[in-house]
């Protein structure tokens, strides 16, 4: 504990959090990259401060991704794609300050909750996550895809169409089972698929920039104000419950190796929508929706640490980098860690808790600085966003090809927005495509072709049932909401 609570360690933690927020906030720079870049620099540090620095970057980046998602609709990290759904409309309504502070508060709730679970129940959660085989992962992916239905209630058909398109784009690259190239057009750059971050940046941010460029500046809406930043008591009453159940989804999904914040935030968003009294607000600047998405993607950090520390298995690409860092500092993550180095583990746990709590003051104070972005006049802001998109797409893999991918996605995003096609089902299909296909085929190989594997395993059956219920529920709601809409049409005519 003394080792943890000194000025030196805390100073490093704050610096790394700030660095993490910045990395997360710049599109194209991911948490993985930030942590990987810092690993060699921590060689000369003691194990505890070194590991805390890296975790600080991780926690900071998970939060930082929300900033550009809210302000300019560019998801700083893939996990922030769901944040754009309600965060950006809020900023457009002149409530950027409120959106930033809500995302910060919800993020802290998620981070603290998941760290609490890590401290109290890591071994139990780890055992549960091992029960997930190909059949369960497939069922989880299908459950994720079923969210398309509720994300696009107003235009179900268009939503499914976008979902299918997203899935099809995800098929680009080497086939996961037979390693045959598909839709690669002979480009080696496409062998591992169209890079994720450039596609998302293009679809959301560049598409939006083109769309904005095509609009005449409205006298007032061109520079939306900052608005008040702290939520009222009433608003807190909305945020806190949404955050609490999102924390659970985020932690559990984070603890499943191979499934990350991008999926968790969509699942939590949908869950919050189903529970909410004010469903119409979702997608038009709902505080609950924003809180749910942000909270879940921060809760993933604690969840992802669970398989990492207890099993030595990294849950996502960031924790994969952390494994290497832990080993360098002679900390071998795995079942023996808790017996062999209990002090270090506990110091790490509390350090992570403190890092999550520190996000609150840093986020609330820094938000004002970041928010200056929104005051930049439109004729400067749009070019800046575009050039940030280009640099970000390049920086991801140091690849010019990715810049091209990003531009293509940008044109697509613009057309889709112009003709009223929803983008989030496309993103969801893109995120879940590989997971769905790989695990279906893997499960069938293991079961020797018998589809019974999906029904006889309880977790898989449960998830598939939930998916079915979710789709039917959305269809019923869509029908209900269409009736009054038609009446409205009649009256306006």
């Amino acid at each position, binding site marked *: 504990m003394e080792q943890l609570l000194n000025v030196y360690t805390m100073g490093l933690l704050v*610096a790394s959090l700030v660095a993490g927020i910045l990395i997360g906030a710049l599109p194209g720079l991911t948490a*993985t990259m930030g942590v990987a870049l810092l690993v060699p620099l921590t060689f000369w540090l003691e194990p505890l401060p070194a590991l805390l620095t890296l975790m600080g970057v991780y926690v900071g980046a998970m939060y930082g991704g929300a900033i550009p998602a809210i302000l300019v609709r560019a998801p700083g990290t893939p996990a922030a794609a769901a944040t754009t759904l309600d965060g950006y409309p809020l900023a457009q309504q002149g409530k950027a300050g409120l959106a930033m502070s809500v995302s910060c508060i919800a993020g802290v709730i998620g981070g603290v909750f998941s760290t609490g679970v890590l401290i109290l129940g890591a071994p139990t959660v780890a055992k549960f996550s091992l029960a997930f085989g190909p059949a369960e992962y497939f069922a989880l992916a299908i459950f994720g895809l079923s969210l398309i239905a509720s994300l696009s209630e107003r235009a179900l058909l268009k939503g*499914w169409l976008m979902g299918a398109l997203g899935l*099809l784009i995800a098929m680009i690259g080497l086939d996961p089972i037979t390693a045959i190239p598909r839709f690669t057009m002979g480009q080696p750059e496409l062998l591992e698929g169209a890079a994720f971050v450039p596609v998302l940046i293009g679809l959301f941010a560049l598409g939006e920039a083109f769309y904005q460029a095509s609009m005449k500046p409205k006298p007032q809406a061109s520079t939306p104000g900052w608005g008040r930043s702290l939520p009222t008591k009433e608003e807190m009453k909305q945020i806190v419950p949404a955050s609490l159940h999102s924390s659970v989804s985020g932690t559990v999904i984070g603890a499943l190796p191979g499934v990350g914040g991008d999926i968790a935030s969509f699942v939590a968003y949908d869950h919050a929508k189903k529970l909410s009294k004010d469903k119409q607000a979702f997608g038009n600047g709902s505080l609950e929706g924003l809180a749910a998405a942000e909270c879940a993607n921060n809760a993933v950090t604690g969840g992802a640490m669970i398989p990492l520390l207890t099993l030595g298995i990294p849950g996502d690409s960031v924790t*994969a980098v952390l494994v290497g860092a832990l080993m360098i500092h002679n900390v071998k993550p795995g079942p023996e860690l808790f017996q062999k180095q209990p002090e270090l583990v506990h110091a790490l746990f509390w350090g992570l808790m403190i890092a999550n709590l520190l996000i609150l003051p840093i986020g609330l104070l820094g938000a004002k600085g970041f928010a200056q972005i929104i005051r930049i006049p439109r004729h*400067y802001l749009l070019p800046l966003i575009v050039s940030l998109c*280009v640099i970000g797409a390049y*920086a991801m893999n140091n690849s*010019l090809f990715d810049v091209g991918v990003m531009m293509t996605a*940008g044109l697509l995003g613009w057309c889709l927005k112009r003709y009223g096609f929803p983008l989030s089902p496309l993103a969801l299909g893109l995120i879940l495509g590989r997971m769905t296909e790989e695990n279906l085929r893997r499960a069938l190989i293991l079961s020797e072709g018998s589809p019974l594997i999906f029904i006889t395993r309880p977790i898989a059956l449960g998830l598939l049932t939930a998916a079915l219920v979710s789709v039917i529920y959305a269809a019923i709601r869509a029908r209900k909401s269409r009736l009054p809409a038609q009446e409205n049409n009649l009256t306006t005519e």
Partner: protein
Amino acid sequence: MKNFKGMVLCFGVLGAILGGCQRSEPAKFPQQPITIICPPAPGGVSDLLTRTLAASAQKVIQSPIIVENKPGGANAIGLAYGARAKPDGYTVTYLVAELAILPHLKLSPLTIDSYEPLARTNFNPAVVTVHTDSPWRTLEEFLKEARKQPDSIAVGNSGTGSIWHLSAASLQTAAGVQFKHVPYSGAAPAVQALLGKHIQAVCVSYTEVQSQVEAGTLRVLAVLDSQRDPLLPETPTATEEGYNVQIGAWGGLALPKNVPKPVLDTLMAAFRQAYQDPEFVQRMQERGVRLAWLEGEAFAGFVRKQSEQNQKIIAAIELNPTAHDVGASFFPTLLIGAIVVLSAGAVWQGVRAGTQAPPVEAIDHRSRAWGAVGWTLGYGILFGWLGFLISTTLYLTGMARLMGQTSVLRAALFALMSVGVFWLLFVYLLRVPLP
């Protein structure tokens, strides 16, 4: 604003740390920083090895050495980039095991003969690993079970055609058995599946399973090599058990073809010395990397032998014989079908509802929108050609004008300032090698 100053201070400190590489008297050859191309993404063993070796080597060669990751295309991108680089010695490539695999999958034309080999740095053999709850205690018991019935034992690997797939396949061929190969997207998910007992074995490097083996949840049956692993002195090798299988992941450094001999010699000497740096050796041991230095022609010979071996394995197992797989075209066909049906549905719905007027605001400024698209596409092309500084300045100036800033001077000033900030953030602080 106070907070902003604090932030600037923090980054100043961080920047000072990041920019810690010292430059001194330029010697004859390295007049500028040297780049090592590392094909795998940041974070893995390859990335760590190149970065640590670079840190040691820059002390020797007295010039900064930058590691640049070029991930993607099953490492084909980075390998090709390194082979095509200017042969002046300023671009070194870290070669990986895929170099000896990709040509046989017709995914890359490159071989070791596309490079000027420097040296092999590491070799990590595959180890056959099972769960401790399984009945098998020796390789022979395990293979006996596999012999009983073909396709009865599921062996996880890190992807079809990956080195760990070929490892399991070469054991299969040597032992005359037939495993059920289950590809995962990397070694870690395969190990996870083994821990959850969804599969029965994996054939990966010891670094991937070490912590589980030490904790007693996984058991190593054999090392697929001719010598015992220093970390596993008790575990027999496949050769000892009567199966002549030596396979694993390796890495090494190379230069593009036709690098001048003096430059090659300088680099060889520098890396040779860096390789013996106790700090480097210690870091690699901590991470479980087995160092295995092999220089010049001997290294090339090793890679050629690996390539021949891989070619034989790939020919022996057809790569996609997996029974009960629905096939590569099943999903895409399904999706294209769905898209056709859904589009038809959407069109029909549209016709039935009558043509809706597009949102009025969207068609307001068509010429400007196309202008923005044109400028942006041009920017994308110039970005790689003219470099980041010039293209971004031009683009920002032009776009600001297009979007309504009437003063060219102001637009240019804005562009220069923004480019400065971007440069500071990305290039100076975060070390992103922009073109």
